């Protein structure tokens, strides 16, 4: 009997150890290595995933649903009557992760928040400084932070700047100063997981932050793996060596993985908009008749079908409909700007423009499949009316340089922006025109017609009127065919069926299925 009991106890101990070991969740990304883990610079998916687990914002997007804001480091906030001053009241007892200068961490206070927001606004220490122009930050006591704006902004545009995204992630002052240049590969924050180790070109290891203010995370840790080969990622997922993988944003891949037992596929938003920008300064695209002919030639549903119904949703306005001010296809159709495919009309428009047999243009495209495949589909469609699109495939970095040098008459661009204002300003405000704009950015069409609407909407405090202005701006753009919106490409990840995120995943700005204190495997 004693021997039997010993056997049972030893068995239970072994089993409990096994369960303990199993609590480290492994997630693999389509990347060769990390770039930076400073949240004010992190832009790539694999880096955003790590900073999402390590840092917090003053407010946060509700996990799995970007349409709702909820408290994060700040437990409450208020806006002054004139809309110029926002005050955030911090939680007490939020512990910063341990680091070399503070082996037990320390309590996060307003001093850290002011430091972090000031850093986010500094072009020398942040990639997102443009978001914080005209703002002043000050502490109003150890647990209160006051942000003063030079012009009032509606909550829909202000809260994203202090949320858990880009410059809104709060960096603890003492940790940043202690680690200096090493902070980018040794991040210290307040989130549910803290940085433990970085193995170049292989992985980052995170362990749970036992003093996390929402409670001890259920996972013992998270390993973020860099695995650029999708077959290797799927193989590792099949054998259980990896729990979650970044997938391929194509229907065929989704269908294959759905058939594998014990695996699940997550297709979620917000996704990235895929838009064809028409350069209105380059002949023959400079002719409105030619641009209309191109619009009447392209069949959006054909491109969407080629990419796949699960991963691509038709996009009819340049701002996706789930953002405030976004246009639905029904709204676009109602005003007759859907440009439903009509090849006879397209040929007639080309003839009226002086190109009865079509013409030839050349354009660069990146080797990345999510850009190249739809562009090749459009190439085939344009050929039906005699428009010969010659494509030069270049590497992704070269593509970004070339299109910003204004060499392309047509630019296929994939992007996510957090608001209608960001979409419209970065892609259609005259200041953003590539090369010649006051602040050259990504206005590839050289549109100048919606500046006033964009600026009026930005400072409009009434949400309904603001949304109406954004919609009007998009209809103007559709009217002049500055661009042709194609579809929203959703994010695709696959996971072991045993992984439970701890929330319902519909959309996330972290660009990966967020892993937080509630996640289990």
């Amino acid at each position, binding site marked *: 009997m004693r021997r039997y009991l010993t056997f049972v106890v030893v068995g239970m101990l072994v089993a409990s150890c096994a369960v303990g070991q199993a609590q480290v969740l492994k997630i693999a990304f389509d990347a*060769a290595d990390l770039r930076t883990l400073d949240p004010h610079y992190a832009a790539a998916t694999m880096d955003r995933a790590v900073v999402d687990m390590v840092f917090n914002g003053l407010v946060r997007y509700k996990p799995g649903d970007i349409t709702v804001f909820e408290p994060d480091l700040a437990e409450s906030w208020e806006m002054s009557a004139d809309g110029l001053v926002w005050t955030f009241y911090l939680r007490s007892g939020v512990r910063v992760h341990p680091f070399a200068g503070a082996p037990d961490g320390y309590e996060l206070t307003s001093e850290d928040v002011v430091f972090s927001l000031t850093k986010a606004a500094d072009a020398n220490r942040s*990639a997102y400084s443009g978001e914080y122009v005209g703002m002043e930050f000050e502490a109003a006591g150890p647990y209160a932070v006051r942000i003063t704006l030079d012009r009032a902004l509606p909550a829909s545009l202000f809260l994203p700047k202090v949320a858990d995204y880009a410059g809104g992630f709060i960096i603890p002052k003492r940790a940043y100063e202690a680690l200096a240049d090493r902070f980018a590969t040794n991040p210290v924050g307040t989130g549910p997981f803290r940085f433990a180790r970085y193995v170049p070109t292989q992985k980052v290891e995170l362990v749970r932050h036992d003093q996390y203010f929402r409670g001890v995370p259920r996972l013992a840790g998270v390993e973020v793996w860099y695995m650029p080969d999708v077959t290797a990622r799927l193989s590792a997922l099949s054998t259980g060596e990896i729990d979650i993988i970044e997938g391929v944003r194509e229907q065929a891949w989704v269908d294959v993985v759905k058939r594998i037992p014990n695996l699940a596929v997550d297709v979620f938003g917000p996704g990235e908009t895929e838009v064809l920008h028409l350069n209105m300064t380059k002949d023959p695209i400079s002719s409105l008749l030619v641009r209309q002919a191109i619009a009447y030639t392209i069949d959006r549903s054909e491109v969407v079908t080629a990419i796949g119904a699960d991963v691509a949703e038709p996009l009819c306005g340049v701002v996706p409909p789930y953002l405030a001010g976004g246009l639905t296809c029904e709204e676009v159709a109602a005003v007759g700007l859907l440009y439903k495919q009509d090849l006879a009309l397209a040929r007639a428009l080309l003839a009226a423009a002086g190109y009865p047999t079509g013409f030839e243009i050349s354009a660069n495209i990146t080797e990345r499949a999510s850009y190249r495949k739809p562009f090749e589909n459009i190439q085939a469609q344009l050929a039906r009316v005699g428009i010969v699109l010659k494509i030069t495939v270049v590497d992704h970095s070269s593509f970004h340089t070339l299109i910003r040098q204004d060499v392309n008459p047509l630019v296929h661009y994939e992007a996510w922006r957090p608001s209608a204002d960001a979409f419209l300003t970065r892609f259609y405000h005259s200041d953003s025109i590539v090369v010649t704009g006051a602040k050259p950015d*990504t206005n590839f069409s050289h549109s100048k017609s919606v500046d006033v609407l964009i600026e009026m909407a930005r400072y409009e405090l009434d949400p309904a009127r603001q949304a109406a202005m954004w919609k009007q701006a998009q209809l103007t753009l559709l009217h002049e065919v500055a661009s042709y919106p194609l579809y929203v490409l959703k994010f695709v990840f696959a996971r072991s069926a045993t992984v439970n995120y701890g929330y319902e995943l519909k959309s996330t700005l972290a660009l990966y299925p967020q892993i937080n204190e509630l996640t289990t495997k």
Partner: protein
Amino acid sequence: MIRYVVRRLLVAIPTLLAVYTVVFLFVRVAPGDPAVAALGDYASAEAVQALRERMGLNVSLWVQYGRTLLGYLRGDLGHSLITGVSIGEQVAVVLPHTLQLTFAGVLIGALLGIPIGILTAIRRNRLPDYIGRTLALVGLSIPAFYLGILLILAFAVNLRWFPVMGAGPFTEPWANLRHLALPAATLGIIMTSFVSRMTRSSLLNVLREDYVRTGRAKGLRERAVVYLHALRNALIPVVSVLGVQTAVLVGDSVMTEIVFSRPGLGRLMVQAMMQRDYIALQGLIVIYGAFVVAVNLITDLSYGFVDPRVRYE
């Protein structure tokens, strides 16, 4: 011999300087902006400009060239433009994995390739020869990444004998070897194909020599003729192939590292290329150049061990 080694090492200096100069110029000719690559397309224009200045890309090419070269002379490979991490530190972490994988591939290639080459030579135009030559042709034709995927599917996904990904720590030899097995087999199979074909053709040439006929005529056993007299002479071109292929194998290891998700020099290099990380790319290619120089030197020195007639002057 020491004078020979010193002379070869001195010759390596202008070689590496030429490698650095060519890489320095070529990476800057290619379009692409490391600041945009690092910050992504959502970054503000001011931030991109500020980073470009901080990266030192706004100073003249001569200054950039000189600064990096001075760093190399001090043994400093510089810091990555993208991550800010010391390239020397990164290389120190990943180089042992690349070297381990490369030498494991070479070892498998030598241990399997030479015996297979001998067997196919002495059984020329018979069944073992046909089988050996066919397998060698398959090994030469199959790309490393595809072979790697096949091995993963067979031995990791289906049989579960080996892990799919990663490199085991050197402090845990068993785990390390299990992680090494499939990637080393991938490179080893390719290497075996090269070595077996070279051994076969070299041995067949030597077996036609007069002294081999003499050996047989005076009654030596066939085994003694092949192993004691012919093989030693036949191995010199095989050693050359091993040397050249070792350098090539470091290149092949890029895809193997990616397929097996192993840390390594190749993956660092690809990442640096994709992100226009000029400083990292220059440093990594100079290291690769130094590796090729070292392998060539070792190859040349090993001739003397195989053939005592070789003299180093």
